[in-house]
């Protein structure tokens, strides 16, 4: 506020005859050089200053010659330059992925499933098929009953097999193929390449 008042009060004095003064400065042939700082003027006498100025402007052949003769030779092993900036992260590996490899949505629209929901649906059903039916699942996850039935019919959570115990292949949905069994097997490798006993030594 005080500044605003000072500005308005002093403005007529500052702008007095301003155009004439500006014209006077502009009409000069060469602008007057601002004086050196006092300390700079004290360092060197005026004649010396002029000498130096003329030397700077003129071209020196001797100096040019010396510049041409300069050769830089480096011996030995160059030191390794390490740049460590403490404030920046040093570990540039991406952070760990979310549980399912992508960010799961917070809310799922009705009639849809997130991957974790579909896996929990299947796990609930296959741990207790009689109790947790498709209708139950449809009710819990807001699904169409038909969709829930299909999901239960065609998908199964991963079941762990004991390599020692016999496996019913038909139960797993793997077709038994007779043409494979008719292929003559190599007697030595037959036992070892059984997928059930495939283990690292």
């Amino acid at each position, binding site marked *: 506020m005080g500044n605003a008042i000072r500005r308005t009060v002093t403005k007529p004095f500052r702008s007095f005859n301003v155009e004439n003064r500006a014209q006077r400065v502009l009409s000069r042939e060469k602008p007057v050089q601002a004086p050196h700082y006092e300390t700079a003027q004290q360092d060197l006498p005026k004649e010396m200053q002029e000498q130096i100025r003329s030397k700077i402007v003129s071209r020196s052949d001797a100096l040019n010659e010396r510049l041409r003769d300069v050769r830089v030779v480096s011996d030995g092993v160059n030191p390794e330059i390490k740049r460590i900036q403490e404030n920046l992260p040093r570990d540039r590996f991406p952070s*760990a*992925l979310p*549980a*399912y*490899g*992508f960010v799961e*949505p917070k809310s*799922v*629209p009705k*009639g*849809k*499933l*997130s*991957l974790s929901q*579909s*896996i929990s649906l*299947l796990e609930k059903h296959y741990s207790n098929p009689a109790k947790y039916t498709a209708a139950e699942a449809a009710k819990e996850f807001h*699904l169409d009953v038909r*969709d829930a039935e*299909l*999901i239960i*019919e*065609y*998908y*199964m*959570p*991963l*079941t762990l*097999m004991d390599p020692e115990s016999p*496996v019913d*292949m038909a139960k*797993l*949905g*793997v*077709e038994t*193929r007779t*043409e*494979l069994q008719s*292929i003559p*097997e*190599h007697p*030595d*490798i*037959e036992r*070892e*390449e*059984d*997928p059930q006993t*495939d283990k690292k*030594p």
Partner: protein
Amino acid sequence: MLRRVLTSSINGIVKNSRQFSAAYDADPKTTVSFLQRDNREVLLVASYTDYGFRLTNDGFVLGPIILFPRSVLHWNVAGVQDITPESLILFSKLEPKLDVVVIGYGETRMSNRGAAMISPEVRKFFIKNRIGMEFVSTGDAIATFNYLNGDGRLAGGAFLPLSSVRKDTEDYARLEAKRKKFLTD
């Protein structure tokens, strides 16, 4: 029973990139990076047989599988005839929507028999749900899925094991060498 690990699946888990150095007359440098080694956090398929799939977490899954970036499900289908909109229902119900679904219909990449096997209903199903879909042989499907998954795409995979595996003398020789190594170690 004989399990043959197909060497061609290595195409799916190895990425080869050539880097030429700045100097014109220097030898080109070839670097190899393994998808399997660089992407330890996602699930890729290491090999496939007529029985199932070996995943990069060293587990062997029997039968047809459904793969997601970090999860596996069994797929209860008997063969190509069962690849229907009903058996693929899960892909249309998932939230968030998948970017792409890769279906491997079995067979080796050598045979072209399965090229036209996709049913129009399946194609319509994916168009209706606006999900990208690839319908290729299992070998190609696995390679595609591994690349997509290693790249951080939200990809789903549905793979049938091979219906048959060609065995040749080279395989027997390889297995023999493996057996010898087992015995000596």
